[in-house]
């Protein structure tokens, strides 16, 4: 009897019993961060730069969620594509464009690139294969794209011009770098624009329909396969934003493997959010960014090398304790 009830509960979308825990915990975290920031200016600075990192992870994580929702494929090449587009931006600047025009061109190139990649590399595989073949194709794409970066631009570190003058704002004894604040702003803006697009435009709605019910979407006239290509294009744009923000950050070097680690943080963020929820991925990304930054600055044995393993452990804990993520709904496993 209880098993039946449990099974029914799992099938329900809303599980009222424990639904207050996650929001309560988030409020708790927010209170902790605010109180901490008010009491210590160092804490405030570390929180802000954690949020800035989180913004970078958020753009990439939302890109992953976008593709996962549409095709149930984790795009392992998302980081490599971001790196590639960042190199494109670097190249445009090396040819004499100034930062923001290069930024804008890069977003356009990223969109076209993502669209083409889906068309050329992913669609033929999707059409024939199972999920494992699609995952492996994504890995192939990762190798291909990261390899092309090394082939075209070499493996040496490049230096990206800084988009923002290194300016420090001083608010009540706390120094905020303009770099961090702009990164947060741009990442949030990118995700917000995307959200508006999905919410209010016809194409955005069609993309959502194609993702949740491809068959029904075709019946109302949506060209589902184009929607998938479009999704890859948009994901690549978000990735490009993440890549350029990362390259602007003083702690990240522009090299072919630039996004490998950031991809793991984005994975962890997406998993925290339940892999299917963009909002969840953003919150997950901000949490991970702040958590890693605070751990790195307050816990002496957490060295920069350990941040990646820590993110891995966070991901593992979420998967073991709440595999649907903090915001995802539990899906019944179909066998």
């Amino acid at each position, binding site marked *: 009897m209880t098993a039946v009830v449990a099974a029914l509960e799992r099938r329900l979308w809303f599980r009222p019993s424990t639904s207050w825990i996650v929001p309560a915990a988030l409020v708790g975290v927010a209170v902790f961060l605010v109180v901490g920031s008010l009491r210590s200016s160092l804490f405030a600075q570390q929180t802000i730069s954690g949020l800035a990192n989180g913004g970078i992870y958020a753009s990439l994580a939302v890109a992953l969620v976008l593709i*996962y929702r549409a095709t*149930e*494929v*984790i795009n*392992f090449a998302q980081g490599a594509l971001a790196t590639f587009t960042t190199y494109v931006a670097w190249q445009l600047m090396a040819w004499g464009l100034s930062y923001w025009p290069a930024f804008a061109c890069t977003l356009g190139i990223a969109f076209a690139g993502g669209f083409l990649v889906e068309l050329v*590399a992913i669609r*033929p*595989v999707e059409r*024939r*294969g*199972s*999920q*494992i*073949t*699609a*995952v*492996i*194709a994504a*890995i*192939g*794409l*990762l*190798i*291909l*794209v*990261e*390899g*092309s970066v*090394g*082939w075209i631009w*070499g493996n040496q570190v490049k230096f990206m011009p800084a988009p923002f003058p290194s300016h420090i704002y001083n608010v009540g004894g706390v120094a905020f770098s303009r770099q961090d604040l702009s990164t947060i702003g741009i990442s949030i803006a990118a995700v917000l624009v995307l959200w508006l697009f999905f919410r209010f435009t016809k194409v955005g709605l069609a993309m959502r329909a194609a993702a949740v019910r491809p068959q029904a979407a075709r019946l109302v006239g949506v060209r589902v396969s184009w929607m998938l290509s479009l999704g890859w294009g948009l994901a690549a744009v978000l990735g490009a934003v993440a890549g350029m923000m990362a390259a602007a950050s003083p702690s990240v070097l522009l090299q072919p*493997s630039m996004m*490998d*680690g950031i991809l*793991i943080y984005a*994975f*962890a963020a997406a*998993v925290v959010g339940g*892999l299917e929820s963009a909002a969840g991925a953003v919150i997950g990304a901000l949490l991970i960014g702040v958590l890693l930054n605070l751990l790195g600055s307050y816990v002496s044995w957490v*060295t920069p*090398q*350990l941040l*990646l*393993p820590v*993110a*891995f452990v966070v*991901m*593992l804990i979420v*998967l*073991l304790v709440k*595999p649907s993520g903090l915001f995802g709904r539990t899906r019944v*496993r*179909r*066998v």
Partner: protein
Amino acid sequence: MRLRRATAASVAVTVVVAAVIALLPLTLSNYHRATGASVAVFFVAILALNIVTGYTGQISIGHGAFMAVGGYTTAILTHDHGWSDLPTLPAAAIVGFVAGVIVGLPALRFHGVYLALTTFAVALAVPQLAKNYPNFTGGTEGLALPTHSGLWLYEVGWAVAGVMFVIAWFLLRGRTGRAFRAVRDSEVAAASSGVTLAVYKTVAFGISAAMAGVAGSVYVLVNNFVNPDVFGLTLSLYILIGAVVGGLGSLWGVLVGAAFIQLLPIALTTSHISSSQSVPVIFGAVVIGVMALLPLGAANLLRVALHFGSQSRQSSDIHLGTEGR
């Protein structure tokens, strides 16, 4: 009857291949013998991945991490504890087995993309751990090991590969192999027919990681040094490429895959067709092409053409966990 004829044919082919591998060093230079040894390393690593992905259907993108565990076992034991080379191989297998079980236990609860995600993260996290404990591992500098002649490496590498192949052969032919395939083809059916899922999946991960650990040891001997970059993400991905090119779920493809990974770059650079920088680009394109055109791998194509092995037909459908779409 048919099965027995297929087995006889396989045995004959095995003998011929083994003879060719045994006689090959006579014609090779010292340098190329060492290259031959690294083909053997990839042979073992791809074999290991095949047990877990090809036969139980659990994807792993992190097998380089298990190689790292084995490789560091060998390096630390010889460098700091005065062991000689070969006795470290069983030690690497044991440490690898333990690491595999540790990763395999949580992996029991993950399916499909989640397992892909976690193993990918393992592949990136393990080298970071090696960097973080320099007292043990020599940090980014790494540890240097004694050098060996190409012939010695070739012999050790292929002897190890032979032993591993025989182990895998017996493992996958017998009861365990049937259980593994049952796990892959349908978890529910396997569970209801009495296969203890958890045990088999964990054991498969353990054995696979043990083999990868041994591969890592030999790899370290061949390179005669070790540092975290040796076991980076690229290594894990290359093992996966090898398995894909050879065909998941096919013991024969392992040799094809290993040769592809090690020999293609050499062929490209020595023939001046292209620089070594283009190798990953070609690998990536090949992987996507294989997935789009013949998802069962090149070796499977051969096998289908030769009507090899009747049990292999079922391996045409490789599942990732059990999710539906």
